[in-house]
């Protein structure tokens, strides 16, 4: 037996809080179009987010979890995956989902109480948003197992929040990913808060990334508001997974700049100073500062981008608002591939309700 066992959690950063390069940027930084489209996606995601919250406040959308503070991580995930890979998202992955091909209207439909919002016209194999915490990790290793069984060189990216790292499904899935060397990358989007529970009460472990070590997986921790750091970590992990070398865990540190959801009031449990400090480090502004310093951005371009995002979001909202609800019978029609006779009577009952109301439900 060995005298001791040593493990490491590695960390690598590229940008300081103001977007200045700390050292040599990774190769992907030379792809200026990639960096520019990343920034555009961050702004689009944030624009949609602001609008969705406004829709909820005015009674046009259901309870909604804001993506504020997660745009950089999501954008990097969306960019690093190949179209044939599979995203297994959690509910703050809007920025990734946009890049995967989920339409803004579909996202609005989902949070606006319509199942068709998860029927994704594009990215047919991506999983829908998982609401019960960490359950999607098991689906991710299942999808990755299917890739292995079929000898496909495809990769699964699975997101969770910091709270999810406390759950069995997360740990069980990491464990399987290690035992079976599955092509999956777990991204812990650690925004410091699980509703009102702060990071230090969620776990006594120094990092959340180190939970990977118990499963035999490599662990890295990065600043989730440093576009280059998260992109670099993801690229390495995805390349490794695609080469058949197994799974990885990335902890991306960020801060939940909004409430947990529109039903939450974070002033009840969170210090205003802490929030203010987090805004000073946030990633969308930081990416913009980097672009300015690199001579890739200007006030005019920013104006044009804001206008473009607003117009895209406005047309998605218009399409969402003018989409009539499904007929009530839809709640039964998608339950099984074919309607069992046992449900026929209840379907007829619903159809009668529909008729009586003149389809005006």
């Amino acid at each position, binding site marked *: 037996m060995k005298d001791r066992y040593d493990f490491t959690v590695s960390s690598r950063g590229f940008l300081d809080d103001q977007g200045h390069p700390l050292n040599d940027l990774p190769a992907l930084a030379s792809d200026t179009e990639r960096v520019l489209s990343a920034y555009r996606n961050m702004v689009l995601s944030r624009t949609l987010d602001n609008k969705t919250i406004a829709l909820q406040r005015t009674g046009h959308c259901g309870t909604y979890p804001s993506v504020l503070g997660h745009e950089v991580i999501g954008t990097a995930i969306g960019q690093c995956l190949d179209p044939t890979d599979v995203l*297994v998202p959690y509910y703050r992955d809007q920025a990734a989902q946009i890049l995967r091909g989920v339409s803004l209207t579909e996202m609005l439909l989902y949070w606006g109480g319509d*199942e*068709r919002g*998860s*029927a*994704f016209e594009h990215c*047919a*194999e991506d*999983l*829908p948003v*998982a609401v*019960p915490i960490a*359950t999607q*990790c*098991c*689906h*991710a*290793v*299942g*999808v*990755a*197992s*299917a*890739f*292995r*069984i079929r000898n496909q060189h495809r990769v699964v990216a699975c997101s969770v929040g910091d709270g999810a790292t406390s759950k*069995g*499904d997360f740990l*069980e*899935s990491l*464990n*399987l990913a290690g*035992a079976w060397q599955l092509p999956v990358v777990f991204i812990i989007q650690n925004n410091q808060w699980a509703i009102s529970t702060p990071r230090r009460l969620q776990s006594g472990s120094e990092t959340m990334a180190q939970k990977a070590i118990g499963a035999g997986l490599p662990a890295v921790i990065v600043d989730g508001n440093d576009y280059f750091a998260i992109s670099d970590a993801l690229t390495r992990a995805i390349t490794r997974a695609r080469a058949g070398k197994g799974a990885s865990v990335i902890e991306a540190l960020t801060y939940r700049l909004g409430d947990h959801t529109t039903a939450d009031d974070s002033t009840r449990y969170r210090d205003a100073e802490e929030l203010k400090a987090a805004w000073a480090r946030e990633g969308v502004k930081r990416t913009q500062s980097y672009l300015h310093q690199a001579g890739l951005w200007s006030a005019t371009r920013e104006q044009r981008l804001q206008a473009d995002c607003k117009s895209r979001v406005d047309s998605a909202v218009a399409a969402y608002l003018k989409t009539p609800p499904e007929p009530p019978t*839809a*709640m039964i029609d*998608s*339950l*099984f*591939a074919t309607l*069992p*006779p*046992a*449900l026929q009577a209840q379907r007829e009952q619903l159809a009668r309700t529909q008729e009586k109301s003149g389809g005006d439900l």
Partner: protein
Amino acid sequence: MTDVTLVEAVNLALAREMANDDTVVVMGEDVATNGGVFRATVGLKERFGYKRVLDTPLAEALIAGTAIGMATQGLRPVAEFQFMGFIYAGMEQIVSHAARMRNRTRGRLSCPLVYRAPFGGGIHAPEHHSESTEALFAHIPGLRVVVPSSPQRAYGLLLAAIRDPDPVLFLEPKRIYRALTQTVEDDGEALPLDTCFTLREGDDVTLITWGALVQETLQAARELTGQGVSAEVIDVATLNPLDRETLICSVTKTGRAVIVHEACRSGGVGAEIAATLAEQAFLDLQAPIVRVTGFDTVMPYYRNEQAYLPGVADIIHAVEQVIAL
């Protein structure tokens, strides 16, 4: 054509469908090299390879959820829970995801998977190995719950379950895993799901049951012949969605219903059947519907399990009660 036990019939069906369809994979604790603790999966790894017969870590939520991920990719996983008493850790995955995936994606993704679990008492097993909690699952929309009661039905219903495009919980009554043998033709012919099986026709009373108790119920029906009572016996087989029509037709004919199940009484599947009969066959009933079930208590350890389990005498007594009215 051979005489096989119920557990051997499960094995035959798995092997048949794995040979037929290379998207079928078998997974669970100890299912590969060991062939399953009840030997239901014996020989499959040798025949179909480790990529399609997967020993999983000991984690039931993981087993349930991994099967879901595989199924969204078009595989047809057959995942084994070693005993139904350990299925609860996987229940969130079954209820919140497997049963809902088709509905919540409006058919974009689905879960063509089977969860197998041995269930029920009567084999002197340790604590947590003998319960019958099928009602917890029969309550869940989108999840089929299927219980075979003989080697032939185990074979035919398991084939149907694997081929079904939606999730099926396949509960195997382990008390009769090896208690009887039957000729099973390994011809790949499935039996219909969502359908009751009328095992014996009769005119005076309908005995409604499923799983291991089908044996006791048939025995009771045979003994009742001596008393001049002609009992119809129905094996419900699919507990959700329920084949109400067969049940209603039978009770309309006989005018009497006795429902027999091993699970405790309150909130059991028998209650759903009784309510259905009361709603739709009330005017044809000549006596109250009676249930013969386990007691509303924790399944006792095995010294007392026979006192808990309904037996032939209990069924006959219930029939005598309703016939006397």
